[in-house]
């Protein structure tokens, strides 16, 4: 059993405490926006926010989380896709296949929450998600566009 606070709602989940957060989200809670890519916290497809910090959920057992910690997933970043990062992504039509993009968006929102005006080097250092289609340059421009939005620093 685990008690988790996800997208503002505290839930009790009947699950082996060693289960990674990713699979609790996807399987127990039916929130499949957070993706499985590698299972070893390398690719970043599973990125969520834990207390505002971009965190890879595929190797994070739910036993390591407390109900006081605020978990935010792509489904909870905004109610309607209106977070500045999502808006920038829409304006620049960033995704290709799109599979890595929820993780990419969560990583970008986490970066902007900590660093409202990231430099190119900051972006390169902090956004280490893998995209095989090749959206990196548009991701970079979109992060800068979102940074220009005053709301970008709000914690998702």
């Amino acid at each position, binding site marked *: 059993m685990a008690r988790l606070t996800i997208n503002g709602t505290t839930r009790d989940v009947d699950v082996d405490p060693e289960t990674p957060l990713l699979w609790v989200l996807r399987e127990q809670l039916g929130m499949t926006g957070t*993706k499985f890519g*590698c*299972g070893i916290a*390398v690719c970043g497809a599973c990125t969520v926010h834990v207390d505002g910090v971009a965190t890879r959920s595929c190797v994070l057992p739910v036993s390591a989380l407390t109900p006081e910690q605020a978990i935010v997933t792509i489904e909870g970043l905004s109610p309607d896709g209106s977070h500045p990062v999502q808006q920038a992504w829409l304006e620049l039509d960033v*995704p*290709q*296949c799109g599979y890595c993009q929820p993780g990419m968006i969560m990583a970008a929102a986490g970066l902007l929450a900590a660093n409202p005006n990231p430099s190119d080097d900051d972006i390169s250092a902090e956004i280490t998600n893998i995209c095989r289609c*090749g959206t*990196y340059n548009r991701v970079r421009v979109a992060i800068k566009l979102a940074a220009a939005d005053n709301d970008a620093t709000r914690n998702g």
Partner: protein
Amino acid sequence: MTRVQLSRRHFVAGSAAALGGFSLGFHVPFQAKAAADAAPAEVPEINAWVVIHPDETVVVRVARSEMGQGTLTGLAQLVAEELECDWANVTTEYPTPGQNIARDRVWGSFSTGGSRGIRDSHDYVRQGGAAAREMLIAAAAAEWDVPAAECQVEKGVISHPGSGRTTTYGKVAQAAAAVSPPAEVQLKDPKDWKIAGQPLPRLDTRDKLTGRQVYGADLVMPGMVNAAIKACPYFGGRLAGFDAQAVTGMPGVQRVIQVDDTAVAVVADTWWRAKTALDALPITWDEGPNRDLSSASIQAMLEEGLDAADAFIGAEAGDARGALAGAERTVSAVYAFPYQNHATMEPMNATAVWTPERCEVWVPTQNGESSLAVAAEAAGLPVDKCEVHKIHLGGGFGRRGNFQDYVRQAVGIAREMPGTPVKLLWTREEDMLHGNYHPTTRCKLTAALGPDGEVSALHMRISGQSILASVRPEGMVGGRDPVVFQGLVLDNPEGSFGYAVPNLLIDHAMRNPPVPPGFWRGVNLNQNAIYVECFIDELAHAAGVEPLAFRRRLMANHPQHLAVLEAAANGIGWNEPAPAGRHRGIAQIMGFGSYVAAAAEVSVTDGQLRIHRIVAATDPGHVVNPAQVERQVEGSFVYGLSAALYGECTVSGGRMEQENFDSYQVMLMDSMPEVETIIMPSGGFWGGVGEPTIAVAAPAVLNAIFAATGKRIRTLPLKNHDLA
């Protein structure tokens, strides 16, 4: 305008009885939105390509798969262009492979590979849109009792100027569905396009930003169970045994199932529990006949082929061997390209439900008809008792076309649990160990160089693996694999060799290691472009001629090849000095029907490579959506440079050594260069876009590295070389 006689097959067959929405007894289990999309089944289609709802929604049916490349949007643009509808009302849906077969393949091919999604279907999808337009106009004209020729249409509004009457597509769609299709239609000249040819945003972006887009890995069905699988990692090996008792009591575990003679799957209530139990399952493998296979043994096999007497000829002019034997000066080099994994971000998966009467599969696939054929075979049922539902792909790159191993496995598991939907999802490790790998080849190039830098002879010997021999032997021509010679054949619209060399021999010593090869985005054009374009660069330097000028002399008879090369070179500022510390390289090739070139600007500091800037030029003949072409060109550098910088699957003990992204490194944001894309469609032909540019990424960069360091890198990946 082009007047086209309509073939009945591509949009008439079976349409009289068919309804839109495809709710013909199929179970579509998607979550709310998709289910709602599929619900309104009472709207008749105008023809196979177009359904128009009373609320003016235009549903364009798209047979090819969307895997990120933008074909969904491009094909819809082509239909909408001829349909003359309002683009704002356009949405899309996939017809199913079973429907296609039931309707005499009215949608043509479902295959989505070879950069063919648009170039192989632009004509008949446009005809479908044009025919629907004529039927809608005819319906309005009949209602008004006026000649159809007196009616006009713009953005889905039909008008009759003589009487001042107007109506809309949505209002006449029902009547139009009963109108006989026209015997011929007129297609627009591309210069008159208003929707096609425009840089429109993709139709499938919004749900990808919120997590709502459902991929195969995300599928949830009522009563569904989850399967994790391990197949024998040794090439040619088998499953020797497993101890199911060891895991049957683990939480959630329902079944442990052997799948054919190579794999074992654990089925549980959740995938995580299935995977956890599978990791605990004692499994023994029969390593099979290839346990001594290694990268070194494969290399030796290929090296033998470099000088072997027998080889298949791909291109020949004059007498290359004779000219080389008599040449005063020859230059020779050997290049090599390693195995690569597709590494789609979404691991392989498929969901199947089987009963003795019927089998259905939900799968992200590049070829729904291949999926259907494999599903039927694995199900032990006739094709008309099976169906495949396509889902957007989390990357394809060639892995999800010909190869449907995951469908075969999913159906095999589902057969053991009749009536229960089974979702099979591979781990990344399973994905890396069971690829259909980009084949490995080596290439020895020898040229005769004259006193003025003229290339009088060139022999290019490729040694290595044939994809077709393994995957599609029916495509072989007299034992020869023509795909080996992508970009290297003479006067071929798919990809001509761009240099005129009077004595030319390009041949292939086929050496097939027991590693399954596959079509990997860009296929053989990737390494062929490296071999040719780096070697041409070597010749230029050996001749003491600047590389662009050197190429110009050889390309006088290939103005379209040269045009993109000149454009890329101009774009990077080839004739101006590079910024301090930066160095440049260029490359060109023709492949997938398009002319492509790249110019790269790099610096190497203390052995550290930095790729600052790429300028890419592409001439695909016609461009349906320049914004999507730009994205494909940019993405091509991620795919091509990931391979050039890091990509390498190595074999040891008869299996691949890399199992995940920690050992199979790919390009990240920090090494991505700026990319400027020059799109220069010259018209008159339809070339592909998704793949060709990948091929020029590596040679442009490698040539720039030589300019920076004097080091000629001939074996990839670059991570194995010291540039200091």
